[in-house]
């Protein structure tokens, strides 16, 4: 957003099908984004070359022509090395840089120390591969640079993103059909949530609450005055809970007790609250701590509304089923709460609420339900009902007329900083986390389905470390970090190198991975460094403790649902 002025992927899904080069950098899309990867597969089958930049040789990397196995947390260094190579090989898109960017000179200077040799030493990637990636990316007709949490779940996640944006600016791999930057979204409608203002400093349509003009527009529509300051981010809330300023929390559709870093600390904070309300479609672990649980409807089948996907496409969702029991639509629950608080809000249909949003958000202004229905979804920005759609963003940067080019994109001058959780003799192994194809996030929604390729909670270990630690597959080991300890069965994965471990976040009930991870947050995005934890592994003969989670939650279910009524 800082670079280009809008927070979203720049390309459409079907653009990747036309790409001739795809880089998955910190993204195991094959497992974590299977639908998106199917679009990528179309390109691959047409002959697109694929690079995978990942500490693990993930399943995505198995599809790649080249895999670059960098050390965890050295993405900025690698990006600088690639950038310097592009510059020194004379492969910079000079016209684009001159017309569309600012800060090039500073960027060149920042790149200068990162020779192939230095970069190779810092990242562990052979120099030759860095060179090949740099040349292929610069020379590609249409290159897609895709990333996900391998980039963002670091203490310097925002810097990582900017490092990749720099490469796109340098080569002009943006703002054209098939060329773009693609941060693939991890959850259904995570894009829509942000677009609709579920970001502490934003009002719907990426309008800042701290901007008076924006704020006043909303105040006029709603007939209220709003505080001019942004709200707290998740990690700021955690701090505020620690400090005792925040005593009541209302959680909607989140399971922080299992999904956030350092889960032991999270659980303690929630238990210490005066009042916790959880609104969800499942009785999650977080809900089991709640004073009140508000059962809501499943948004994809029990309520009306819209979803927005990673390619910024807003799509209508129709109600197909009546919700079970006393479950209510999220909007209706909030309206009823407002009513108890003394505010009488009108009962509105999803379309009426959407029309209100359209009146306030220029990017959505043209998207009437009629248009959304006719076109089967529309990509923002779409200010005019008759207007054209924008398959990709930032085409303006290629305009000949400087007027039309708008705000130029700045190169980001950033520092390479290693992960916070340092390795030492006591914690010599690097643990990184991620997802498996079979399961979704904390498993709340996917754990009920069988899959022949579900491994369950386990710790993946390289063949060399298995030998060194004298482990057999399936043997239970103790994994400890500076914050916690878990028991997990060992699983052999040749995709890992000595010193690197992997655990999936999908099975917190079996193995609470996030009791190991560190809450080292990026200063801007506030995302924690899930991807880099220092751990040790010990052989043990202990069986996995059988925590009777199911019985526990069922027992509570009755009382909490009663409280919700």
């Amino acid at each position, binding site marked *: 957003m800082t670079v280009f002025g809008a927070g979203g992927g720049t390309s459409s899904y079907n653009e990747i099908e036309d790409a001739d080069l795809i880089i998955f950098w910190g993204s195991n899309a*094959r497992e974590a984004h299977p639908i998106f990867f199917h679009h990528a597969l179309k390109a691959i089958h047409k002959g697109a*070359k694929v690079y995978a930049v990942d500490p693990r040789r993930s399943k995505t*990397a198995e*599809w790649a022509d*080249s*895999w670059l196995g960098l050390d965890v947390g050295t993405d900025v260094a690698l990006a600088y090395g690639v950038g310097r190579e592009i510059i020194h090989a004379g492969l910079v898109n000079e016209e684009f840089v001159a017309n569309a960017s600012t800060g090039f000179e500073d960027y060149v200077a920042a790149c200068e120390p990162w020779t192939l040799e230095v970069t190779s030493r810092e990242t562990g990637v052979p120099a030759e591969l860095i060179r090949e990636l740099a040349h292929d990316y610069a020379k590609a007709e249409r290159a897609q640079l895709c990333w996900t949490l391998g980039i963002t779940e670091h203490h310097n996640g925002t810097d990582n993103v900017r490092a990749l944006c720099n490469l796109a600016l340098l080569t002009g791999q943006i703002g054209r059909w098939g060329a773009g930057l693609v941060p693939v979204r991890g959850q259904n409608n995570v894009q829509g949530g942000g677009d609709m203002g579920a970001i502490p400093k934003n009002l719907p349509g990426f309008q800042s609450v701290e901007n008076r003009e924006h704020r006043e527009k909303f105040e006029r529509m709603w007939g209220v005055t709003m505080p001019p300051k942004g709200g707290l981010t998740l990690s700021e809330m955690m701090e505020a809970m620690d400090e005792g300023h925040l005593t009541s929390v209302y959680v909607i559709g989140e399971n922080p007790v299992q999904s956030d870093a350092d889960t032991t600390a999270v659980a303690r904070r929630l238990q210490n609250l005066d009042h916790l309300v959880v609104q969800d479609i499942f009785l999650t672990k977080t809900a089991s701590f709640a004073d009140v649980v508000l059962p809501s409807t499943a948004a994809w089948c029990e309520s009306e509304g819209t979803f927005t996907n990673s390619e910024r496409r807003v799509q209508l969702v129709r109600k197909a089923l009546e919700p079970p029991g006393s479950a209510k639509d999220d909007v209706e629950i909030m309206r009823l709460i407002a009513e108890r608080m003394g505010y009488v809000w009108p009962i509105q249909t999803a379309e009426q609420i959407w029309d209100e949003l359209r009146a306030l958000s220029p990017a959505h202004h043209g998207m009437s339900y009629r248009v959304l229905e006719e076109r089967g979804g529309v990509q923002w920005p779409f200010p005019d009902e008759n207007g054209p759609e924008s398959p990709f963003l930032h085409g303006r940067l290629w305009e000949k007329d400087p007027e039309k080019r708008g705000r130029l994109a700045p190169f980001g001058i950033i520092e390479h900083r290693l992960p916070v959780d340092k390795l030492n003799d006591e914690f010599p192994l690097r643990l990184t986390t991620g997802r498996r194809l079979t399961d979704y996030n904390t498993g709340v929604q996917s754990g009920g389905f069988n899959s022949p390729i579900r491994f369950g909670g386990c710790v993946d270990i390289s063949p060399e470390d298995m030998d060194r630690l004298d482990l057999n597959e399936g043997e239970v080991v103790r994994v400890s970090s500076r914050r916690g300890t878990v028991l997990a069965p060992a699983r052999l994965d040749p995709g890992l190198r000595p010193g690197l471990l992997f655990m999936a976040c999908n099975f917190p009930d079996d193995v609470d991975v996030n009791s190991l991870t560190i809450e080292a947050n990026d200063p801007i995005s506030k995302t924690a460094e899930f991807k880099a934890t220092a751990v040790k592994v010990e052989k043990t003969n202990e069986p996995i403790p059988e925590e009777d989670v199911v019985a526990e939650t069922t027992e509570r279910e009755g009382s909490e649902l009663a409280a919700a009524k």
Partner: protein
Amino acid sequence: MDLKFSNAEPFAEERDAIDRRLGGPGEGGWHGGDRDEQDHRRAHTGHAARSRRHLVMEALHAVNDRVGWISPGALNYIGKRLSVSAADVYSVATFYALFSTNMRPKRVVHVCTDIACMARGSKDLCASLEKRLGPAGAMNGWKHSPCLGVCERAPAALAVEAGDPPHEHLIGPASVEEVALALSAGPAALAAEAPPIMAVPQAGQEGLMLLKRVGQVDPESLDDYLATDGYAGLRRAFEMEPGKVVSEVKDSRLMGRGGAAFPAGIKWESTAKQPATPRYLVCNADESEPGTFKDRAILEGDPFALIESMTIAGYAIGAERGYIYLRGEYPRAFRMLSNAIERARERGFLGANILDTGWSFELEIRRGAGAYICGEETAIFNSIEGYRGEPRSKPPFPFEQGLFNKPTVVNNVETLCNVPLIMQMGAAQYTKIGTEGSTGPKLFCVSGNLVRPGVYEVPFGATLGDVLELAGGVPKGRTLQAVLLGGAAGVFVRADELNIPLTFEGVRANNATLGSGVIMAFDDTVDLSGILLRVARFFRDESCGQCVPCRVGTVRQEEALLRITHNRQDAAAKGRDVQLLRDVGLVMKDSSICGLGQAAWNAVESAIDRLGLLEESR
């Protein structure tokens, strides 16, 4: 590769078999070699590794031939070597009947229970085998099999012993003792296979064109071949421009002999015109229509003829590589062809700079593994490319996007073997053989209850009666009940329709088909409804399952026939089932993707309408 269900490793034997076929082990840990430090930081797979995907079938054959079955570890290892997911390799392995992904003994005998063998005692053979060895099943060492293409020596069996090298042996006519011996002492202990001449009762007769060398020359000797006009056709072709070769074939009005009867010259011309290169030539030697064994006679008795024919075809259409897709049940044909290719290459008839013309042509044999559908012209591409042998939707047609999505000519063995004749005598002379609509000589696979079953060559124009007479007619004291024309996908004709001329236009006028040249005679001892059930079971078994009309229709067809057989007395129920058969048949005919589903109802329909076999009123 991903989509792997276990970390199982291959047995040493399996690994060796795969490495020998694929070359290897590959470099580094990612390709099946030893893992080193570089493997911790880099891997090169992607397109380069996947470009060898077409070797999946070959690798599966290597393991199956060596061990007798394919373990999960072998599936994983093949996936790793070729950068294909193990699940994908499994999907290919389980498509083909000759491969097993379950443990089974090294020795297995496949006993043919198809229609030609049924007419000649396979049921009795199976009953005796069951008594002696236990019920059919791989663990008891013997299995039922669809047509093995040895119909002239029915009942037939194929004995296989896995090993290095494997032993494969066609037995016919098979007896309980021979099957038992093959299992106890191995196929090597059996008496030698009947020589190719045994399939050709006319062998040595004057005037034969396609079969003239069978039984007369040593099929392993290139010198013998050269001494009997061998390579005269190629020399003649080299005197012409490729375009002229194509126009000669076009002028000859040579029609495809595999079953579809498409003009070969037009196929060649449209392929040669495509700008895309490389172009490919594929010889369809997946002769698996029940009752068909004509190509086997050529492949075993005159293999060089096919090599020469393909070289001419390659020259004409500008293909530098040809594939022979040979059915997996023809071990001797495989040996003969492999030898012929090697000999031809040694002497400069194949490979680079053939006969000093500067033109190069390579030939490779790919073995099928027991899937009838792979004889379909696009399924054959998928199979060669290492996929399940599922037909593709057309268009694009093979001449536009065939093998590896490049312009491709697919011709049947017999079709190709007419080409040297055309080259030698010229199109004008060739068209004088046969009739206006059907030129040239034609091979017929004559089997069933006849005195001298075998492959017969006659000029187009002979009648059905003529050919049956050549084969000696039904044995004395019996009467002809019906004839199946064209194979399982063909139609039954009555004993009073023997004057049907065996030409494309002649059979068409009589609502029949020549198909692949099958003429199967059934005398009055044969239970035709049993034959019909076997045909239905065959199609149900062989449907690839890709499209609904065929997948469901072939099952419904068999069920209805079974019900009819069991409820002979209930006329009303029978009437309903016959109507169901008609409905299902029509749907299959109209809406199946490929010829299998489209023709799966032909024989049943003709049995109802022509023979009155299931007559509603009966």
